[in-house]
């Protein structure tokens, strides 16, 4: 029989207890290190960009046209082009993606048809952007006869982001506990009313987060838009918000950045960096907008 330990002995340090405490400290330290490993490069990148871009950065830089073979002046046509492309592709992809995900997650029964669709969504999300570019060229530019245009490029970006929006929205919807839906159905509330009243309000943050990530991706992609509607240079009026029609060609920040860093000799160092800062700014701006939207929805929800 084991001797019952007296109370005092329970408070003394044992070998196994020491080992436990040691591993605990190590684990905590390693995880903290990994967190820093993620944050530090991010800060370094942003800091480095700002430092290099500083001489060229000004309000005018955003609103001016490029001058002297893009070696001077601003980036307004490219800035505006990226805004157009991102917003139009978002307006196309977000509603379709969210509604498709609602169908797949809330209505569709498990059968071979939905299994194939789910498989297709996952696989499409992994298709390289250059392949989407070729598809866009074939489908929108040539077959649909849109030509190389803002619309064709936006549609290509929408097709590229759609599968990921569907996948992330589905993820957000399925995170809402099944018991909420059952409780609602039990009261004779219809599926759509349940989705609107219970499921959507509880998944809207996740859905928006998924969409935002795709906005950033759409803003940064070069290949799909290069094939379908973006040009090296296009003159527009300074600060003109409505410079591009849907069937016009346009400039875009990602493409512009590529051009001035590799194709044009003699560009001052600060200009590409300033362009990069603005591109980053556009992405952060859209992110900030959606965060505001998220807070607004959370505080004003009437459904």
């Amino acid at each position, binding site marked *: 029989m084991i001797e019952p330990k007296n109370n005092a002995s329970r408070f003394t340090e044992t070998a196994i207890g020491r080992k436990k405490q040691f591993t605990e400290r190590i684990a905590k330290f390693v995880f903290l290190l990994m967190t820093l490993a993620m944050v530090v490069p991010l800060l370094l990148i942003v800091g480095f960009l700002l430092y290099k871009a500083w001489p060229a950065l000004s309000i005018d830089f955003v609103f001016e046209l490029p001058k002297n073979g893009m070696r001077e002046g601003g980036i307004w046509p490219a800035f505006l082009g990226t805004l157009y492309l991102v917003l139009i592709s978002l307006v196309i992809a977000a509603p379709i993606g969210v509604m498709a995900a609602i169908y797949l997650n809330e209505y569709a*029964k*498990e059968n071979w048809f939905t299994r194939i669709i789910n498989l297709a969504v996952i696989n499409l999300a992994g298709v390289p952007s250059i392949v989407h570019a070729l598809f866009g060229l074939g489908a929108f530019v040539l077959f649909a006869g849109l030509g190389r245009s803002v619309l064709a490029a936006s549609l290509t970006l929408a097709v590229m982001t759609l599968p990921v929006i569907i996948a992330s929205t589905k993820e957000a919807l399925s995170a809402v506990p099944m*018991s*909420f839906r*059952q*409780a*609602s*159905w*039990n*009261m*004779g*509330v*219809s599926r759509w*009313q349940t989705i609107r*009243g*219970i499921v959507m*309000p*509880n998944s809207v943050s996740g859905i928006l987060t998924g969409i935002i990530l795709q906005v950033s991706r759409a803003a940064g992609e070069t290949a799909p838009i290069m094939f379908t509607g973006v040009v090296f240079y296009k003159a527009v009026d300074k600060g003109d918000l409505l410079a591009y029609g849907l069937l016009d060609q346009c400039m875009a920040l990602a493409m512009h950045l590529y051009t001035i860093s590799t194709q044009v000799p003699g560009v001052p160092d600060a200009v590409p960096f300033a362009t990069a800062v603005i591109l980053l700014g556009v992405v952060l701006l859209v992110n900030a907008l959606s965060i505001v939207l998220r807070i607004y929805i959370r505080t004003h929800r009437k459904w």
Partner: protein
Amino acid sequence: MVAQTAKLNIEDLKVSYGDKQVIHGISFDIQPNEIFGVIGPSQSGKTSMLRVINRTIEFTANARVEGTVKMDGQNAYHVKDVYEYRRRIGMVAPLPVGLPLTIYDNVAFAPRSFGMKEKSELDELVTRCLEQAALWDEVKDRLNTLGTMLSGGQQQRLTIARALSHQPEVLCLDEFSIAIDPVTTMKIEDVLKELRNEMTIILVTNLVQQARRLADRTMFLLNGNLIEIGETEKMFSGNAEETMTNEFVSGAFG
């Protein structure tokens, strides 16, 4: 027993999920304003039976239902408006589910979905349901806080208030007391004794003694078969027709 007056009439009910049959042809009547107890060990088909009665079993893709369910003599599976039908049945699940809405909205959600918009009308209904569920005194000052912030026992009473919010004719309780404390359980049992004047109650319970305390008649299910159905007094007195019933209620198995 006169069949015409039965609130619910279930005839030769068979339920299977895929290849697995869980209810093997049971038939029974439930009379208006009675508390109908259902006892039996787990896997005996109690919950499936309730889901057939309020037709939420249709949300399970591979479920198959045979037999007839009639409410007030009308076949439940032939009604035109399934939402209207479900509304006539209140359902309380085993685990309390506070919807992530305010306490007020929890109760007002179903009435709103049926088009009740008048504020005063909603206020009155919410108050009455919370009172009936013995929760009003505890929450009347904080109706705009989240329902999910309530304690487990309070959430279960909120669930009952919600089930009452669509003014059902039949109230089904599925093992409502497994996740809550004895004091709340007794409170809810008192609530049920009041409610029986207004509606028919189906009480599925894992506590045999709870059925004994409350039910007028009790049905004993085992592995999807109806073993016995009878007056509660008789079922629990040790004089039940089937020896299995006597063994179950005395705790010999289950």
